[in-house]
């Protein structure tokens, strides 16, 4: 009985500390800086928004690559 209790406690603690770690990481990344957006944002979560996020990432990647190329080119020329 004692062993079961111990196990339950350890698993419970591990689970809650994992959640806490994820939460702290999210706060530090600024995920909770905007309380209003965080609450209302849930209402708008949809597949379309996920697709938008993917498109945004692709666009950022392309722009960064282009910028790097431009800088490289400018260096070669200058």
């Amino acid at each position, binding site marked *: 009985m004692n062993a079961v209790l111990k196990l339950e406690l350890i698993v419970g603690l591990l689970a809650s500390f994992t959640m806490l770690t994820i939460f702290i990481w999210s*706060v530090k990344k600024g995920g909770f800086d905007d309380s209003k*957006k965080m609450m209302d944002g849930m209402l708008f979560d949809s597949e379309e928004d996920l697709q938008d996020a993917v498109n945004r990432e692709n666009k950022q990647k392309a722009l960064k690559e282009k910028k790097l190329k431009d800088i490289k080119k400018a260096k070669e020329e200058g």
Partner: protein
Amino acid sequence: MSIVKCTHCQLEFDETVMITEEKSPDVYFCCNGCQGVYHLLKDDGLDSFYEKMGNATIAPPVESDDNAENFDLESFKQRYIKTTAEGFSKVDLVIEGIHCAACVWLNEKVLDSTDGILEANINFTNNKAKIIWDEDTIKLSEIIEKIRSIGYNAYPYEQSAEDVKASSAQRDYFLRMSVAVFGSMNIMMIGVAKYAGYFSGIKPENLHLVHMAEFLFATIVLFYSGWIFFRGAYYGLKNKIINMDLLVSGGALITYIYSMTVLFGANGHSYFDSVTMIITFVLVGKYLEVLGKKSAVDTMDKIKSQVPLEATIVEEGVKRVVSLDEIVVGDIIEVKNGEKASVDGKSIVKESIYDESSLSGESLPVEKQEGDMIYSGTINSGMVMRYRATKNYANSTLSTMVNLLEDSLASKPKIEEMTNELSKYFSLTIILLSIVTYIGWYLYSGDLEKALIITIAVIVIACPCALALATPIASLIGISWATERGLLFKEAKFIETFAKVTTVVVDKTGTITEGNLTVKKQSQELNPQDLALLYAMADSSTHPVSRAIKKYLEQEYEKIEIVELEKIEQLGGRGLKAEYKGQTILGGNSKLLDEHYIELDSKSDYTIYHFVIDVRVVASFELEDSIKKDAREMINYFQKIGVEVIMATGDHEKVSKKVADEVGIKTLYFGMSPLEKAELLTSLKEQDKIVVMVGDGINDALALSKADVAIAMGSGADVALAMSDVVVLNDSLKGIKESFIISRRTYTFIKQNLLLSLIYNMITIPLAMAGFVIPLVAALSMSLSSLIVVGNSMRIKTKEL
């Protein structure tokens, strides 16, 4: 006539004044702006915005007079645009017109889909946006135009050191508070097992295991979340001040150390749960304080973003764009239509028109002659004009107002100082009592552990709870009651101040009066042909008088033929001139008639608009700003209960006196500038009066910041809303009376609660000191006292308003 909602902004209007479309009979628009944005969003596949909006309303889009190309100027770039490590450009903006989460969604979505924009992140809480873009692909002016095209506007702001500090403090406190809440919730769950074990029996080894888990959570909460209290107590002691932080950290630490001795072998009960509870409750209160400070910084950034960026000076016929700090007294400054004057000065042109609503609150533009003062922050509503600077930027009206607002935001919470002062004595008394208890019991019994347990009981029983809850719980119920009635109290402390009010100062335009001109009298009926011409004339100007005439015609006449006028000419300060099929048409004031040698006896106390076709006066209209229907009732109520009511307005004597007489106000101050209004408030406060200020315009912002309680009407200017402590959402003056009644009743209950908790402390502290209360009972009685206070507070809402 039925009321319908505008399909875009969702504001309600009479169906007859709405713009409709033959192709889609179900859509209605209140203006061309709304219609334009609606079609733009529909064409771009963004019409799901309207589903996301729900029941929220937004402001109809307003065409901006600012030239977006200013955003591409070199001086702008140097001041506001930063370069990221990867070589992209970054700017911080304040987005105007964001009302709901759907607005944020729409702006982000539109910006995200624009080529060249890497990141567009808008903070809904403070309407600030961070935009990162590639300068080679898109210009900032194009991004601003994009935002304007969907009905919003954007201003740059410089991220101040205070903003960075406030944001980081907010994040830090949020994290500490969340960890404390996490720890408390876990300990509460574990506590169920522990307290159940007291009654049903629990094996010592299992109890030890439970204590170990509690110890783990309590350690994290005490030393991570509670660190700020230790820090506060340390700095307090260093400066020889005993503060609430010392009581909280000291009480929690002693309880923690005692519980540890129990965990590692001593007899007794552990109180790790009390440790986390004490830290968590007090930390939540602290976090709310930090949020308040952050919102003050955000307000200041919004105000600063309204300041013009640069000015055009003319030197020997050559124009040069300079930053505001470079302007010196004597410089000639050129101001285009729609631009703001940057510094104070004197006009050097014969005639010009200025919108001084930011200073006087009056919506009618003011005519300026050569030599008249031009104030910074006012907008040129006429042609391009020039004036000579008489002050530099730092000493000008606009800069003085911004500085005064900044000071007032920093110095507002004086009631907080009083509370801290009180809690200092309370903390000191409790610490002294617990030391006396410890020494007394140790000397009396010689038992160290017993002395320690009794001392902890004293600290636990006296710790925050009832006394700390007495005010917040009653305030919370009062505030929620007020919110249900459309009255937003930004902070609980204003309930107390409002309840003690001795003087109410009200603004005129927009507060006592509707703030819009309406036609009171029409001299003659119009035939359909004249009606069509007058409507076309009124429709071709955005002047408040023209707008009022247009609205009146739409309400009075069911069918108006649409005709197109030719050669429309704005005659500054007089009206409009146009032609139609060879006829000369005039619309404007008596000066316009004099100028065209048309004789008419038209003396009136009201604003007059004459409509003339080929020197024949077709009709004259008298316009007036009407008084709100519940103004008299509200003023009577305050006067009846002995509260002095004063009217302070920027308008001239004649109109102000008429309004004051009509609503029964005896004390009147007219022709006041924003600074004079603020001085009036200060002088009233110096006479030991508790002053409530009610206003709605930018011109009231400074006076609002000086008031003990600032009340703004919901439809007021953004700055006025930001400076206010209470917002009356429905614009009704009855709301002010209701918020006073709610405040007074809540304050009565706060006093009752304080009395109850005082009685509790007077009974329990001596009992605990005498050793009759063990810490467990102390913790229970602490909860019981809280319940009594909560129960009493629930009675606040039982009164009918």
